């Protein structure tokens, strides 16, 4: 592991990494290099923990004057006229957006490979994916190109790539961070999230972004009296009891459930390295003084199915605005408006996006809502209740993030269906609207492994406390070639 500090060579460092991983779709090289030079030097201090820090922004979050393509041909050449509230708040805290990161088209994927603008490779093994859909943000932070980056998490799109790349990934409580400026995929499920090189950094970024925004009326301030809400006090006085969803309990929940391909055929739910890492993380949490209590989440069986039904239904409406009429790419001419819209969408959307729009449209047809959309909403309510029970008297629920470490491509890659089914551990926090934090616990077979903690609404601090404590006691590694620019 290389940990040399080479302040003058940042541009070269950035270029070398980008040639290998391709995390950014657009980057202001000069701005980020300048920030690297001045970071840590006298005079750059003061103004809070984010002052002077550059950050990457997933290409579905608006930054005024930068591209906003969502990884899609549909928005090729589109430049945002405005900035997302989350970005504006980070700028107000002294941080600077320096580029846009690669992603699965409109957030639809688990590998960043559905991007229309090329692949992003995993900094730990460039033959493997960085995960998705916030793969560019995860890879950029893992390679040390920026200290943090914004992502978005609809069903695990911050936490899964964070886990694949060995960085911290925070999905806040629904409504804790304004969604204004986040290009919607599945509005009721998604949040802007943080990918950061440490839990402390993730906390600082979250603190700067969170809170009610008049431009997003679904956003809220943190209510008073939330357990664990003691940022900045350094005090860690939660119940120190953590519920554990063991892989065995998850398998029990899935047993006999229709459609969830991740079980029922005798295949273990988790690959051995991930299962071993999970056991190790439990041991270490105990050694830190946490009491661990095994629990069951019976409704987990329905998580993936409910998640995809709701997400795709919302996506079918959210993506309807991309028609080439007011912005974006479109045919040079068309005999009528219908032909214009058809032409623009046929040329603009990739296969995965089309598939999801079609499925979502199908699920919302008149007469079928009860069978699909409303049923999924009932399942969602069940998952929310399960978590309420699981979190009563506990700081968090410890769960796996994803069944595998970063996967390869081609024959190495799980099938598209298996990739969707594998979202079950992450998507339930989105369904329940709860905060969830993925953090690295170690390296296994040259690839990072990690776990996640799911907390009560607005209980981000309890999760960050635990992850920070864990990171201090059991520091994890960085990929080969990593240099420390952002201490």
């Amino acid at each position, binding site marked *: 592991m290389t940990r040399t500090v080479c302040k003058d060579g940042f541009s070269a460092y950035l270029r070398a990494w980008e040639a290998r991983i391709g995390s950014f779709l657009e980057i202001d090289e000069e701005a980020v290099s300048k920030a690297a030079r001045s970071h840590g030097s006298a005079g750059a201090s003061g103004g809070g923990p984010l002052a002077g820090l550059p950050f990457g922004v997933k290409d579905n979050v608006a930054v005024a004057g930068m591209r906003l393509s969502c990884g899609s041909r549909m928005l090729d050449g589109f430049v*945002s006229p405005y900035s997302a509230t989350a970005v504006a708040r980070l700028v107000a805290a002294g941080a600077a957006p320096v580029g846009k990161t690669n992603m699965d088209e409109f957030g639809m994927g688990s590998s960043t490979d559905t991007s229309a603008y090329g692949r992003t490779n995993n900094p730990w093994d460039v033959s493997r994916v960085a995960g998705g859909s916030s793969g560019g943000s995860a890879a950029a932070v893992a390679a040390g190109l920026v200290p943090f980056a914004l992502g978005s998490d609809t069903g695990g799109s911050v936490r899964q790539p964070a886990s694949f790349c060995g960085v911290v990934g925070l999905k806040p409580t629904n409504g804790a961070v304004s*969604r*204004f400026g986040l290009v919607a995929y599945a509005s*009721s499920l998604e949040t802007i999230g943080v990918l950061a090189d440490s839990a402390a950094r993730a906390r600082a970024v979250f603190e700067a972004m969170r809170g009610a925004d008049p431009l997003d009326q679904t956003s809220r301030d943190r209510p008073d009296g939330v357990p664990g809400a003691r940022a900045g006090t350094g005090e860690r006085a939660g119940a120190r009891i953590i519920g554990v969803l063991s892989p065995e309990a998850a398998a029990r929940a899935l047993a006999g459930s229709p459609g969830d391909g991740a079980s029922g055929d005798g295949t273990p739910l988790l690959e051995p390295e991930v299962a071993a890492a999970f056991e190790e993380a439990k041991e270490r949490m105990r050694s830190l003084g946490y009491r661990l209590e095994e629990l069951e989440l019976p409704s987990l069986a329905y998580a993936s199915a409910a998640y995809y039904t709701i997400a795709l239904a919302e996506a*079918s*409406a959210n993506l309807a605005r991309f028609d080439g*009429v*007011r912005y974006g790419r479109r045919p040079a001419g068309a005999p009528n408006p219908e032909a*214009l819209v058809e032409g623009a969408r046929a040329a603009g959307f990739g296969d995965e996006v089309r598939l999801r729009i079609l499925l979502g449209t199908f699920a919302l047809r008149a007469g079928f809502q009860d069978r699909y959309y409303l049923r999924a909403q009932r399942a969602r309510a069940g998952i929310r209740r399960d978590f309420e029970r699981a979190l009563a008297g506990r700081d968090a629920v410890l769960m796996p993030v994803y069944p595998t470490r970063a996967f390869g491509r081609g024959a190495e890659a799980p099938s598209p269906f298996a990739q969707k089914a594998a979202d079950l551990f992450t998507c339930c926090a989105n369904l329940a609207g709860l905060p969830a934090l993925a953090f690295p616990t170690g390296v296994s077979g040259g690839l990072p492994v990690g776990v996640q903690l799911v907390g009560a609404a607005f209980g981000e601090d309890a999760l960050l406390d635990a992850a920070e404590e864990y990171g201090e006691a059991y520091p994890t590694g960085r990929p080969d070639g990593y240099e420390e620019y952002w201490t």
Partner: protein
Amino acid sequence: MREDYQAFIGLEVHIHLLTATKAFCSCRSAFGDEPNSNVCPVCMGYPGAMPALNAEALRIGAVVARALHCELSAETRFERKQYFYPDMPKNYQISQFASPLGVGGWVDVPAPGGGDARGAPAAIRRIRIKECHLEEDAGKMIHSGDVTLVDYNRAGAPLLEIVTEPDFETGAEAEAYLQQLRRTVRYLGACDGNMEEGSMRCDANVSVNRRGAGLGRKVEIKNLNSSRFVRLGLDYEIARQVELVEGGGTVRQETRLWNENRDRTEVMRVKEDSHDYRFFPEPDLPAVGLDAAFLAEVEAALVEPPFDRERRLEADYGLDRERASSICEERAFADYYEAAVAEARRLGVGDGPAAERTAAWMAGDLRRALRAAGLGAAEVGSLGMPAERLAAVVALVDSGRISATVARKVFDAALGEGAEPADLVRERGWELVSDPAAIAAAADAALAAEGAALAEAAAALAAGDEGRVRRLSGYLVGKAIAASGGTADPSAVKAAVEARLAAASKAL
């Protein structure tokens, strides 16, 4: 329509709410500005932009719903209504479906043809309001040659859709409702009610069936851009459907357009082409709870509905229906009337005369003055003739201090010069004169100038030709009053002229 058939008509009326800004963003909500000048990322459906509900749109919508006696939902939500159209930026409309702002209301309208305009009270028909829901408007497509342009200024403007139950039977009833609704929303200051500019739009659905057999198969009619077209379109459609059924055919469920140039409805689309709107809850907007403070504010904004006021004016002021209806056309005009009557009474005019004469002035000279100034009845406040001054004129006539002829001069001068009527009468010597010497002088002067008429009248009197005497005598009285500058007391002048006429006749 044939007696053995019954028609069922329901109306869906969209009104543009008079808010400063659009329903879900802070763009100006206005008609007639430079195309695409009032737009922003939100109302243009830019990627990542989110709607934020305009509280004023919610409040005004709730006021209209309450005025139509709807019950307000304790918690109201928004849904997405999905269909692709180039003038709709997001390709879905934010609307309400499962929990509309207001439900279950009613409104009374005068039944057309019922009652006698001059006396008997109007027949009343109660129309049930199914619901009132908030939604956003779309933009506007402009076709020019082989190019289509879109103006999004109107996109996102707040609309309230008011849906009735199928409670109308004729086009005339629907027209009366629409006029009534227009008056109501104008009273509330919720909408300007301008159908030509599209700030009030009406779609109708209509079915026919043999009387007593219930609803028939529904046809929707669009493009009814005036209350007259609503009546004509519905009556045409009812006749078409009855004829179809009579001939053994069946009505097809379809949407038709009113063609105002050919006075008929024409097929727009059949049921098979109809939209599946795929409604689902709008995840970008939270449910809105209507709290006690909001409800109190809404109730405080309610005003007496125009039809209630019309009936009250008939009952309390003894006005006939036509006059009450005319006064109640605009809230400001009715306010003016009641203020003027109250002031006239305060000045000592009896209740009946105050009500009657004020109404007559408003129907005559005040309307004339408004027209001359290019103002509508709603703008009576800008005329420069406060209700108190009109009341002063009425009182001056009533007390006998000025004649009817002078009254009009006082009115015009008060209006033109912004002066108090009582001051004008005093300063210009317009008070009625009954001093015998002055009357005699006026009568003598007139008769001296009208020798021929006097001689003719005297001859007629001698010959017993009463009709002729009355006509000529009236003519001479008029001349005598004119000779006094209009101030001579007409009854005294009449007596003086008649006395001189009798003398002249005897002298023949």
